[in-house]
């Protein structure tokens, strides 16, 4: 009797579960997104430096200047600052704050908040702080160099007359987010300027505020009730952490989500004929490249490098396993950046590659180890290189490791070839030029692990000077020309084989309009989306 009762209970539970109506269209004022968001460690703009974190930050914190999501090509536009002036010596920028911006707490945004936020970002000295400290701001001098003279005026004093576009581009980065000073300081613990609190809470003047964050699970954003701009159509945005592409696809097909952000090429292809679903392609800033350690004698031979660049099957890869996800691009500035070079001088030509190798000091090639992390697309690229470089007679071995393992080797300059990706840190050409084409001191002691040129032991004092000259050039056309020239030279002589630029393929309901993931320069903007 007891047994049959238990069985009946279980059966009825199962039946109840199966009978639950489970499909529901997302409401018209709510946006539900599936994305991989397990990289979020903090929402604090002074510390946040991850992709998913930047997506949240852009919708929560406003900056002095910012990008219009519907016209990214227009570059930075006034946001919290309505105007700015640069002094004659080019070292002082004076911002005049705009009216009508209010934090989610109800406090108005003033120059004092901007002073607090930028000083805080410098003094906390977290990883992204270099974006500001490269202008000469230090924890010791911020009280003189970042000053709000009154509630409407902020004065920045730089150590050199940098190109204005360089400075303003950097202020559009996540670290330029202006925090509500009063709220942050009300939550200060042990002089941390509210850091601990700002890790999990937000205090911005953007269209949204974070209501709940469950790490590796979901982020919930609601409208900032005090937002000064036009009221966004999406009053609530939920980003769910869904690791698997196949799961995201199923959710999109069922109508449980509005946008799927991590679809594999197979799932994108599978959705092409799906009813009510569209795929929107967007060029992003991430580059895929290989680089050769110049401590390796064979790999420092220019002719060997030329042979390897010619023996890379760019079109073959982008036309097969990378289809739709990457496009061929061979310069260090991503397309859409100021001064980006669109020329692709290398294409797969095994005969030309063999001829170049024959002219080198290593006509028989030799053993080459490629460090590659255990991600599918990189393994596929590694195998393609193994195949085509093998045709030159090189003995290629793939050293597969986790991201952290391969990165450790790379930073220690212990690799032969590193197969990696690089995304811009801020939307100015110097973000990539300053790492691919700068290495003033190539010694081990210099320990310039942040510079890709140093990691590959590529000492380039002359090119470094040219790159640094470009950041103080105030004429935009001249600056563009300087970068174009730099990239042409870099393509020819560098130990970097830049191959592809990322295309993000987002699947979404047909009714979703204005979904802009941020192009190559910024992050996603939920406030312009309608559906």
């Amino acid at each position: 009797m007891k047994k049959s009762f238990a069985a009946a209970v279980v059966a009825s539970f199962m039946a109840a579960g199966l009978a639950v109506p489970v499909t529901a269209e997302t409401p018209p004022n709510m946006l539900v997104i599936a994305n991989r968001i397990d990289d979020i460690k903090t929402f604090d703009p002074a510390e946040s430096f991850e992709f998913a974190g930047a997506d949240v930050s852009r919708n929560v914190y406003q900056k002095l200047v910012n990008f219009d999501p519907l016209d990214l090509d227009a570059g930075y536009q006034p946001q919290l600052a309505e105007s700015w002036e640069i002094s004659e010596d080019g070292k002082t920028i004076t911002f005049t704050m705009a009216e009508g911006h209010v934090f989610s707490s109800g406090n108005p945004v003033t120059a004092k908040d901007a002073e607090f936020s930028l000083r805080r970002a410098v003094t906390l000295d977290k990883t992204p702080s270099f974006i500001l400290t490269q202008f000469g701001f230090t924890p010791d001098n911020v009280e003189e160099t970042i000053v709000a003279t009154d509630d409407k005026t902020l004065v920045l004093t730089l150590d050199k007359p940098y190109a204005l576009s360089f400075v303003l581009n950097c202020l559009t980065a996540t670290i330029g987010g202006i925090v509500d000073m009063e709220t942050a300081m009300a939550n200060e613990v042990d002089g941390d300027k509210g850091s601990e609190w700002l890790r999990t809470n937000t205090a911005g003047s953007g269209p949204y505020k974070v209501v709940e964050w469950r790490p590796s699970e979901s982020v919930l954003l609601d409208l900032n009730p005090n937002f000064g701009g036009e009221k966004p159509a999406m009053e609530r945005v939920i980003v769910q952490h869904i690791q698997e592409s196949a799961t995201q696809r199923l959710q999109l097909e069922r109508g449980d989500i509005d946008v799927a952000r991590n679809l594999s090429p197979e799932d994108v292809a599978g959705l092409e004929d799906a009813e009510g679903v569209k795929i929107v392609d967007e060029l992003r800033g991430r580059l895929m490249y290989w680089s050769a350690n110049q401590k390796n004698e064979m790999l420092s031979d220019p002719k060997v490098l030329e042979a390897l660049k010619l023996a890379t099957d760019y079109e073959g890869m982008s036309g097969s396993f990378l289809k739709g996800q990457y496009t061929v691009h061979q310069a260090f500035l991503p397309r859409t950046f100021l001064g980006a070079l669109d020329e692709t001088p290398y294409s797969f030509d095994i005969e030309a590659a063999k001829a170049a190798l024959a002219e080198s000091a290593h006509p028989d090639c030799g053993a080459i180890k490629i460090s590659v992390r255990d991600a599918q697309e990189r393994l596929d690229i590694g195998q393609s290189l193994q195949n085509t470089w093998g045709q030159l007679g090189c003995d290629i071995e793939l050293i597969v490791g986790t991201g952290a393992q391969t990165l450790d080797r790379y930073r220690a300059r212990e690799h032969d070839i590193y197969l990696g990706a690089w995304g811009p840190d801020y939307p100015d050409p110097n973000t990539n030029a300053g790492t691919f084409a700068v290495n003033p001191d190539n010694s081990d002691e210099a320990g310039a692990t942040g510079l890709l040129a140093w990691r590959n032991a590529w000492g380039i004092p002359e090119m470094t000077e040219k790159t640094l000259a470009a950041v103080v050039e105030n004429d935009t056309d001249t600056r563009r020309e300087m970068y174009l020239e730099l990239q042409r030279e870099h393509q020819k002589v560098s130990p970097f084989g830049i191959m592809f630029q990322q295309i993000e393929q987002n699947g979404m309901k047909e009714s979703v309009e204005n979904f802009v993931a941020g192009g190559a320069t910024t992050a996603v903007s939920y406030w312009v989306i309608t559906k």
Partner: protein
Amino acid sequence: MADTTHGEGRRASSFPPWLKKTLATLATVAATILGLLFVTFMIGRVMPIDPVLAVIGERATQAQYNQTFRDLGLDKPLLTQFWIYVTDVLRGDLGESIRTGQKVTTDIARVFPATLELATLGTLFGVVLGVPLGVIAAVRRGSWIDQLARFVGLIGYSMPIFWLGLVGLLIFYGILGWVAGPGRLGIFYQGIVEPITGMLLIDSALRGEWAVFRSAFSHIILPASLLGYYSLAYISRMTRSFMLEQLGSEYVITARVKGLSEWQVVWGHAFRNIRIQLITVIALAYANLLEGSVLTEIIFAWPGLGQYITTSLLANDMNSVLGGTIVIGTIFVAINIFSDLLYRFFDPRSK
């Protein structure tokens, strides 16, 4: 001297046996968990991954690197680092996760109930269906039901859970729409129920939020059935083999000769004698599910302990890994002790 020794001996023996046993058990538990922590800690420290980079990312300057290196205490000798960690643990501080930026205790309090709920329901399915299936398969050896049990077991052993999970989602969620999709709860129900235990089914039932309960049940049913199926395959196979052994024993023949009904022979005698072995099997199956079913958790976006530990390990977030290790170690020890107690209850000889 002799007196003293004698006196000490007398004092020692004055402890009641249950207290001695409890103290011995506690000492074993402490030594086991300490040993486990030591090994995990050392593996974490000798892994060829730089924990500093996991915190600051690859763009940080050397000065920031050095500062974080010191902040993490990595400049101290390994044993000192371990000692500091253990004393912190004894104070209830498992440290901070570098991956989520939160206290490990907060993280575990969030992810463990999700795993506990899923594993318990999965084991329940496995036991409720697996034990009778195993018994019937043994009793009707060679019949169609025995063949079915074997087939179920074979599929359970050989199909990758990743594949089965995706196919399950495709059919029951994607095509039929009978169950809800990934995650623990529908988006409309999130935040409605104030957590008590962290287990959504229990919390929503306790608070009388039946709409939330239905949503949570609709989300858990598929992953729990999947895990239950794997438990079922294991439990039914073991039950069948235990029962076959008993059914071939002389006392079963005697019972049959005495004219007892088949029901009494099977359930009253043979099954009673396999209960103890079954407890071990079920306890092991349950512990395995509690340890975390990483792939199931990934497919169903189930924010559980297995996924938490695996992701942390790959990011070299050792505080999280060690915190998870403590939880798992404690679970295994607790399940072992519980099995021991059940042994004593079911088997008078062990008393």
